């Protein structure tokens, strides 16, 4: 998740203080990716160093008030380029669950069925939480609704994938009478690549 671009996007809406940016981020993302104030502050310092944001002069009637941040022209250009670019799946990092199950299916001594059920219960619990959060939102909370909807689809997809993994492993055991053999190096490479 790019905190950098999220902050640039929020600042394109209006100049804002560090504290307000953190608050807006939490509100607009349905509070599903909580940011601490240190993350926001550090990111803003990097953006300032790179010339993408600057501090505005403090309020005349309250010199002690924190100076709000605002976008520079360079920052606007950077943000515009981000809006224009699709997000690549390849840059989203490795998925620990994919790697864990790919290994569990071939490493001896792992109770794959129990592992899958524990994960299924945990992901279903997340789905309960997300559904409850979404039910509590007002219809006007558009950004938060979209973010939560994305989490719900992702959790649901993971549950379907777990069903398929369970069925695949069960069938493989039925066919061979024992746990599947480790995949060939090519297959293993593909598995890890797909987990990126």
């Amino acid at each position, binding site marked *: 998740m790019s905190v950098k671009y999220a902050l640039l996007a929020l600042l394109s809406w209006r100049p804002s203080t560090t504290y307000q940016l953190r608050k807006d981020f939490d509100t607009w993302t349905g509070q*599903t990716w*909580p940011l601490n104030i240190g993350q926001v502050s550090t990111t803003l310092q990097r953006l300032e160093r790179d010339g993408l944001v600057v501090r505005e002069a403090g309020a005349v009637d309250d010199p002690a008030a924190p100076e709000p941040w605002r976008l520079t022209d360079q920052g606007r250009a950077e943000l515009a380029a981000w809006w224009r670019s699709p997000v690549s799946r390849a840059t989203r990092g490795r998925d620990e669950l994919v790697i864990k199950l790919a290994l569990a299916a071939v490493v001896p001594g792992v109770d794959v069925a129990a592992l899958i059920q524990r994960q299924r219960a945990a992901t279903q619990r997340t789905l309960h*939480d997300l559904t*409850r*959060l979404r*039910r509590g939102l007002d219809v006007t909370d558009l950004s938060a609704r979209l973010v939560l909807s994305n989490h719900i689809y992702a959790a649901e997809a993971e549950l379907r994938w777990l069903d398929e993994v369970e069925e695949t492993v069960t069938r493989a055991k039925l066919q061979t009478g024992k746990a599947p053999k480790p995949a060939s190096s090519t297959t293993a490479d593909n598995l890890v690549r797909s987990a990126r």
Partner: protein
Amino acid sequence: MSTHQHTSHAGQAAPILQLRRASRIHGDGPRQVRALVDADLVLRPGEFVAIMGPSGSGKSTLLHLAGGLDVPTSGQVLVDGIDLAGLTVTQRTLLRRRAIGYVFQDFNLLPALTAAENVAFPLELDGWSVRRARQAALAVLAETGVAELADRFPEDMSGGQAQRVAIARALVGPRRLLLADEPTGALDSVTGTEILQVLRDRADRGAAVLMVTHEARFAAWADRTIFLRDGRIIDETGPSDPAELLTGGAG
């Protein structure tokens, strides 16, 4: 095995439904099929429980036992504290009609009756006057958001509308236990979500809802999800405690 016990708003009101080590075994010897084994379940007013599991895991058997459509080969099923095994067939039929409502995947509305007549029908079977039964039917149709369909026939309704009428029929009169078997199975995703909102609303108003579904997203509307496998309840989960929410990042 992780078991999450969710403390629902239903508190500790007397259970509407209880399964105590309920088993249903068909046949004997090598052909024996253990459809349900030692199932324990407590459902209280205001609670909404979802049952998930692969085909043949015992979901329908559990629902049939809960609704008195079948009897356990061992263990007990109690509705409003009454052990169904101690009832005659006639008494069980009467209890089913007065205490339990069913919602099916294909709605099962009588095509020759209007929505209001469908909903009033079980009350009339129970001896209510036509007028009083219609009044009760209109009230519950309004509660499920389809008051304007009262005089419409099932063939003139959408799937979502028909299912709302079916839910009204399941809960009309004194009945507070709703058993739903894949209630969204014949509906698109958006309409399915609307039906879940109705079921959730009914539970929040005090009904007890037990729903079989294979859709995780719909099970997530319940207070608890129970997982069945090979006839056994193997796991249970529900929402996090409110204090845990938002602290770990849900995504």
